[in-house]
């Protein structure tokens, strides 16, 4: 079971990043052992389709669940296709978000939370 959190920094004390496609880091952890690894979000600087690319990165890292702030329609479709469940409604640090997730206080999202980003650059 792998849980990913979009984060502004590279450890559990850093804040949840409300952006998905263009967040700074993904923290990927096992909620039972709290062991984690951090990856820099390579899609952050994508000139187009950042949300799609970020979903691809998480799928490649075999992530099952995701905690983030907002997902647009493209990212939502990609995450859904990859079988990744999306949890929103968290705030504060990554640690706090995980605690809420474990207590079942985060809502599972069944639709995009924003109208989405921009699509392409030109």
């Amino acid at each position: 079971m792998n849980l990913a959190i979009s984060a502004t920094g590279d450890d559990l004390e850093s804040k949840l990043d409300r952006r998905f496609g263009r967040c700074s880091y993904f923290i990927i952890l096992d909620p039972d052992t709290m062991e984690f690894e951090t990856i820099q979000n390579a899609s952050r600087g994508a000139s187009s389709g950042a949300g799609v690319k970020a979903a691809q990165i998480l799928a490649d890292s075999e992530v099952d669940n995701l905690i983030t702030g907002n997902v647009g329609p493209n990212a939502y479709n990609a995450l859904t296709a990859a079988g990744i469940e999306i949890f929103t409604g968290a705030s504060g640090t990554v640690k706090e978000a995980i605690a809420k997730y474990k207590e079942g206080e985060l809502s599972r999202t069944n639709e995009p939370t924003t109208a989405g980003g921009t699509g392409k650059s030109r």
Partner: protein
Amino acid sequence: MKQILVISGKGGTGKTTLVSSFASLAGGKVLSDCDVDAADLHLVLSPRVNRKEEFSGGKEAVKDSSKCTECGLCYEGCRFDAIDENYEIDHFRCEGCGVCAYVCPEGAITMEDVLSGYSLESSTEHGSMIHGELQAGEEASGKLVTEIKQKAKKLAEEEGQELVIIDGSPGTGCPVIASLADVDFALVVTEPTESGLSDLKRVVELSKNFEVEPAIVVNKHDLNHQKVSEIEKYAEGHDIPIIGRIPYDSNVTRAMVEGESIVEYSDDGASEAIREIWRKVENKLLEL
């Protein structure tokens, strides 16, 4: 925190006049100039740049002529007419797709990051401002608009401000879509001209697609009464409020030449109308 956007279907309708006035009327806020192609706000607000970050909008093909055997595969492969008969790359047309680099058997073409411009964090006498500066020939991309908006939002959070005022991009393409994303309220500025009305319709349609609530401001409303009534009819038919009518006022240009917003420059005419619009926007913000 709330984000309000001022947009217009085309440029030159008075968008910057409105934003620069709001800048001096609003309390705590961060300004965000997403009209990067014609970034005019800084001419009125004279920002002091505190931070400048390089911005790359994408990639571009670069050829190493010493490796090129002129086989022509890149020329055949490029769908954007960006490689000419002499197999030179036209960097104005290159979309950065990478087909040429892929098909080149000699490895003579590589894809490299292009410096497209800078994002700037500045202070003005009316608060902080995030804006952009483009290299000549580069464009306001959705990516740059997104970056400016995100920086403005982050800065507002850091400063504890409750409001971001965004000067949106013109047109209906990608930068406008990026301007609209995640915004709470959009003011669409239009003029009573034939083209003003058709541009207005496009922008309103777009903002509805993005579930952003629009309201209309008619600038120079006394120029053509016939067109104003057409705008009114359209607004009524689509249930969109017209929240302001700004008269034609030669002080607008004089204020611009002096590098001041119209509400700082004069008290009546356009200035009075814009103050009234701002009061309505403030009330609207309380409702949201």
